[in-house]
């Protein structure tokens, strides 16, 4: 997806005033100030009741409270850790199965023909729609969101590894074959490194989908995690808890994205030299 940060082609002549860096910094600061100012104003002037929208300071105070007073069974950091553990387990599973599968599909036409129809059929089911079967198969415990996260993270892994494998220079594969590379050697030591930039791009997309799917699953099933915490906040009519949880989800999501982007840049720059 395109990002806002992408440097767009500048218009030919820089417009004198509105284009200068100082004005843009001022405008940016004003934008954030407006956002926070409106939030503070509507809450402190009593335009909305605190049961609808608490003030920013109330939310901050709540975040501090949540780190040393358990809410719905755990501290904020424990909920966060629970979410991260579920995410890590399923994401790893999706990568470990998805990437080799994608490479194999790119390498062997028969595997491609065999897997593609199933894959294409299942791809149209939104990950979150796996929640009911996930409950029937794994119960409501720690494993319940696994299938949902897997469903979210799996297809970008497969698709990007497949694309990466398809774009490998034929001569590279043939050279490796001539030198006697077979099976796992071919997959792990020739195709994986050659397709790595594509694979890592897929890993980033799939981490984002996986994280979002996890939160969705936790809203519906489970008894730990950030998603569970915000649903509990909702049923206790505590919007401060809900917003505190959302902020945590946003920060973690942004950190995951940032880490994966850094990994992607590092591999683009330093790989294959």
């Amino acid at each position, binding site marked *: *997806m*395109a*990002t*806002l940060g*992408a440097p*767009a*082609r500048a*218009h*030919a002549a820089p*417009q004198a005033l509105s*284009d200068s860096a100082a*004005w*843009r*910094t001022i*405008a*940016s600061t004003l*934008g*954030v100030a*407006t*956002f926070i100012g409106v939030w503070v104003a509507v809450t402190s002037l009593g335009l909305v009741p605190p049961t609808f929208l608490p003030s920013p300071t109330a939310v901050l105070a709540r975040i501090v409270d949540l780190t040393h007073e358990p809410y719905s069974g755990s501290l904020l950091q424990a909920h966060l850790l629970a979410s991260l553990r579920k995410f890590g387990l399923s994401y790893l599973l999706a990568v470990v199965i998805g990437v080799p599968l994608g490479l194999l599909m790119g390498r062997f*036409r*028969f595997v*491609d*023909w*065999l897997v593609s*129809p199933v*894959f294409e059929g299942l791809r*149209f*089911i*939104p*990950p*979150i*729609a796996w*929640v*009911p*079967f996930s*409950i*029937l198969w794994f119960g409501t415990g720690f494993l319940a969101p696994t299938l949902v996260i897997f469903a979210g993270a799996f297809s970008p892994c497969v698709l990007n590894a*497949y694309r990466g494998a*398809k774009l490998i220079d034929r001569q590279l594969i043939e050279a490796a074959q001539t030198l006697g590379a077979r099976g796992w050697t071919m997959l792990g030591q020739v195709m994986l490194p050659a397709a790595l930039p594509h694979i890592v791009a897929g890993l980033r997309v799939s981490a984002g989908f996986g*994280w*979002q799917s996890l*939160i*969705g699953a936790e*809203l*519906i099933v489970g008894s730990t995690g950030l*998603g569970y915490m915000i*649903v509990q*906040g*909702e049923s206790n*009519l505590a*919007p401060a808890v*809900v*917003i505190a949880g*959302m902020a945590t*989800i*946003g*920060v973690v*999501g942004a950190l995951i*994205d940032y880490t994966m982007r850094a990994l992607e840049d590092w591999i683009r720059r330093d790989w294959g030299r």
Partner: protein
Amino acid sequence: MAGSPRSPGRGAPRARVQRSAVAAGLVVALLAAWYLTTGPLELVNSLQFPSPDDAYEALRQLTSPGYAGATLARHIADSLALVGLGFVAATLTGIPLGILMGSSRLAEAYINPVFQLIRPIAPIAWIPLTILWFGLGTAAKVFVVWLAAFSPAAINAFTGVRNVDPVLIAAARVHGASARQVLSQVVIPASLPTIFTGLRVSLQACWMVLVAAELVGSFAGLGHIMIIATRDLNSGMIFVAMACVALLGVALSVALAWVERWAVPWRR
């Protein structure tokens, strides 16, 4: 996964026939395995996965007397109406905002940071707050669908406008076009392909978020069927609802592709 970058080379038609044969064989094999493991062999409990009979039975029940408070047609109509409302609202608000940000750097500097502040929060995570704000009814669903679609719509409109060839704009100006004419006759048409790319992403996000919101709490819709069926341990009903979600997701994409062909006829 058609359209491989590898050269079609020799024997392409034969490969296509082989490919279809493999696909057809696979589908038959999977259907047979489904029938055998859930039916005669009794390997899979119908509480875990429905047999074809269970699924058919569920579909019949869903269409004629109905399930979870309404018939299948009503549930589908409900879900589609909510997605439609939220998506149209996001299109009507997100695209103008994106165009504004694309054409004025000052507006971009003002709006963008707030956008970046809110965007990392997954739309799904807004569901509890919207329930708190608007309850379980139409307003909450439309709001969260709008939220999911808004940022891809705005971002792609922004990117589209920013990437319009400056030469086109200069040429229009030279020929005496007013600012409004430049916008409506040059900038918007030139950025339509990118805008539609954003809308495609938006629509898929909308559909997923709506199903999620219906699973969390609702009175009707496909997600509502699923959650009631899970409570009743009715795997056949879950299966039918999931199939409907997948098929309607495809149908929505196809419908949008039609709109795109009508709105951007010069694209291909």
